[in-house]
């Protein structure tokens, strides 16, 4: 026997990447804008999506969502109150979503993608593990709530770096938390220069219209030109 080197130069997640590219093609062929929503647990992903999806439906922008959690279908029930089609992915302990789960759930779901404009994937609440798992999304949205502290982006730079849009949530609590808005913006921009930042309160409804407007424009630019 002889010893030799076998050059590979292949990404460890290359299979996930290939499947994600296939799924992205399928979603884009149906004219969808797909959003992968990530944050730590309790940052307000579900509250924001429930509010947004309700408002989007009312303004004539049909939307659906898949939501991932380690256990329970509580979040799918909450999102379903928006009236939009929603399915839960229970990962049974797994700390992130992989694209195979998205594809499998879409295949088993009687959902006509062609009737939709937007598709939300609410990831498992975790700022580390979902970072480099491409789910076939067009945009990755990272949330930071005012209750978490302004330095979260500095503690989890990889996730914030991987995002396309940042949303500061629970702005109605900003004053009570003595939230330093300028510092939060500075920290986000430090690990992701140039990223678009929104501020919202799902409870009061502030900033939601602006965010929807941004998504509608992003989709229009993508498909209408």
């Amino acid at each position, binding site marked *: 026997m*002889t010893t030799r080197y076998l050059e590979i130069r292949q990404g*460890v997640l290359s299979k996930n990447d290939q499947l994600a590219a296939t799924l992205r093609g399928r979603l884009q062929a149906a004219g969808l804008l797909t959003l992968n929503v990530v944050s730590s647990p309790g940052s307000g992903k579900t509250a924001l999506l429930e509010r947004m999806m309700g408002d989007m439906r009312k303004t004539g922008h049909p939307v659906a969502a898949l939501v991932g959690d380690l256990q329970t279908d509580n979040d799918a029930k909450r999102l379903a109150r928006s009236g939009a089609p929603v399915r839960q992915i229970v990962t049974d302990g797994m700390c992130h979503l992989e694209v195979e789960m998205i594809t499998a759930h879409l295949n088993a779901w009687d959902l006509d993608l062609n009737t939709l404009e937007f598709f939300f994937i609410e990831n498992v609440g975790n700022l580390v593990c979902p970072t*480099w798992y491409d789910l076939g999304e067009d945009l990755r949205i990272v949330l930071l709530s005012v209750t978490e502290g302004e330095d979260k982006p500095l503690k989890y730079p990889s996730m914030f770096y991987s995002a396309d849009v940042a949303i500061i949530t629970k702005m109605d609590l900003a004053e009570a938390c003595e939230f330093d808005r300028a510092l939060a913006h500075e920290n986000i921009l430090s690990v992701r220069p140039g990223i678009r930042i929104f501020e919202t309160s799902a409870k009061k409804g502030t900033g939601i219209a602006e965010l929807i407007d941004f998504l509608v424009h992003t989709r229009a630019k993508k498909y209408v030109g």
Partner: protein
Amino acid sequence: MHELSIAYSLVQNASEAAQQAGARKVNKVFLRLGQLSGVVKEALLFGYDIATKGTPLEGSELVIQTLPIVIYCASPQCQQEFTISGLQGFRCPKCNQPSNQIRQGRELEIEKLEIEVD
């Protein structure tokens, strides 16, 4: 702790490549790991031992090369790459301009295998 998932993907990819090359045995797997990959080296090494059990890679060594973050500064006076220390800010160490052009640091890549062939 997603390193176990990563380890399973790594073992699957490396096993397939080794099999295609007709390897009798895999001695070492060389991995390039960027500082922005979000993967903890020690956790991955721990996961590797579990993920290789009962596979052609059982008993092989995972050799990890950690890669620092390299950014490109596009400002007129720089226009070059810089290695930066730390992850808390992607700024040019020379002119302090923020940069979103990361040239290195995201890697999570199998570079090569050391194998035994007939």
